[in-house]
């Protein structure tokens, strides 16, 4: 609660800048239009115009809000013009990809921590894998997966997974290795076996590392799902809205899709934060 006022201030500042930027960016078009229509614009007319263009370079916040309101509240959820419907499509791919990425990442991390050979040979390539512009390869992945009969949700989820497994691996390797030498020795004095050590020591001590990674992974996963929707042909989903908006120069639609995606991301990340608080509190790690 302490950060309520500061956040409000910053958000307020952003809005002010936003409105200002809208005037600056859209004014050229307003003047251009006026010139062709042979009228002269007063400053206030220009400002109102920049905040109400149909296809502005930068839509004003209230235009975006109106669009979002129109496409969420006023449309039936099942309607293809409802942002909620598109959001749900993206969300399902995101969640599936996130689940797969997290699972894969944790498995890989367990392997890396327990096998030196794996640590030395796989880890550099995990890093290299992230330097491949998956976003550029996404269309091919979708086509190739289509070729082997996988279509629909899975190809998108696959791209999400590719983006989300990396932070999980990195975080979990760090976390599973976080028990110090003394804690490991302690287990050895009780002659605990490797599985016991894993369940009773490594896994619990990795929790503080896992959750921040999950937050990053969730955000990455959403990006993956959106990118996966771009090439599948503007069928459905927030990515498709972005693309269609871009295709028809509908900046208001782009921004509303973008803002919805951000809200979705924030909600998902907040959800993980909540889970983190509950888990860590039960584990007594939250003071």
């Amino acid at each position: 609660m302490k950060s309520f006022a500061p956040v409000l201030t910053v958000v307020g500042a952003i809005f002010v800048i936003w409105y200002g930027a809208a005037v600056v960016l859209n004014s050229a078009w307003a003047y251009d239009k006026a010139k062709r229509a042979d009228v002269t614009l007063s400053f206030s007319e220009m400002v109102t115009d920049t905040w109400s263009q149909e296809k502005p370079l930068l839509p004003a916040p209230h235009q975006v809000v109106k669009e979002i309101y129109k496409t969420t509240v006023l449309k039936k959820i099942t309607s293809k013009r409802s942002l909620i419907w598109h959001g749900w499509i993206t969300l399902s791919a995101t969640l599936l990809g996130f689940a797969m990425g997290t699972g894969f990442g944790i498995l890989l991390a367990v392997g890396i921590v327990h096998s030196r050979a794996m640590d030395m040979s796989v880890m550099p390539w995990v890093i290299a894998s992230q330097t491949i512009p998956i976003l550029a390869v996404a269309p091919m992945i979708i086509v190739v997966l289509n070729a082997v009969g996988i279509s629909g949700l899975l190809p998108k989820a696959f791209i999400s997974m590719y983006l989300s497994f990396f932070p999980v691996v990195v975080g979990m390797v760090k976390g599973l290795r976080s028990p110090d030498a003394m804690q490991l020795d302690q287990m050895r004095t009780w002659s605990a076996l490797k599985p016991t050590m894993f369940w009773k020591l490594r896994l619990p001590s990795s929790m503080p590392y896992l959750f921040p990674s999950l937050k990053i992974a969730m955000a990455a996963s959403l990006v993956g799902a959106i990118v996966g929707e771009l090439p599948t042909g503007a069928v459905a989903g927030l990515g498709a809205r972005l693309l269609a908006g871009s295709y028809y120069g509908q900046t208001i639609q782009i921004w509303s899709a973008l803002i919805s995606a951000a809200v979705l991301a924030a909600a998902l990340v907040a959800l993980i934060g909540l889970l983190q608080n509950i888990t860590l509190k039960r584990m007594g790690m939250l003071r």
Partner: protein
Amino acid sequence: ADDVSLQLKWVTQAQFAGYYVALDKGFYSDEDLNVTIKPGGPDIAPAQVIAGGGADVVLDWMPSALASREKGLDLVNIAQPFKSSGMMLTCRKDAGVSSPADFAGKTLGVWFFGNEYPFLSWMSKLGLATDGSDGGVTVLKQGFNVDPILQGQAACVSTMTYNEYWQIIDAGLSADDLVVFKYEDQGVATLEDGMYVLGENLKDAAFKDKMVRFVRASMKGWKYAEANPDEAAGIVLDNDASGAQTEKHQKRMMGEIAKLTAGSNGALDPADFQRTVDSLLGGGSDPVITKQPVGAWTHEITDAALN
């Protein structure tokens, strides 16, 4: 019923009205076909989709299809519902363009992804370099919209008669502000939106039979769409999953599309084919195709379908 999947070249819009009408009006089921229409997008290469087995039939432009043939993918044109090309270059008058002679030194927006071939062969015909050297034109890879011309980043952009041109108009520029160069008029038109299948599949009698029925039903759809443009546009809108299309735009598009499909009964006109090939072969230093294609089209299907 037999399953047929069709890969479109672009997103769901009136450009593909014939197929959606055939599906919606039950022309396909009348032929005992179960058709799935897969929308395309900016990064979907139909040729790649069919190579991967993701579709039975794809819609593609002939230059891109022929180029794929040279890459070893045996694409065969089985029907050509579009008689004329809808492609054009739209320029702003105030950028100082009034004829192709003015192109030199200007910035032109072009689509790539296999759609650049007609442009390249036109430029080579005009003798204009496209690699940025002196006296040539500066080429810009245009995104999915017409922003470059609206913002003055390019003097001309690629448009289709039925789509992007109207986006420019909608954005507030009037037809008087613009000059258009139709590829059709410049003698560099190439065949657009033909139906292509893999050559090896055509050896299979059952597949051929399926295609015969498919082409017949599709052409029925096209003719219906030409006759009832408003209804066709409505059907397309119903099938648009992105919910981004507007009725006004689709109706207008349907009207323009009807002009392009008008002269075709579905069968490929060998003369049109040859014109396309010649224009592509004459691509100067960097020709799109290097030799006369053989077996790139067949009348077998249309002959059977249209009888």
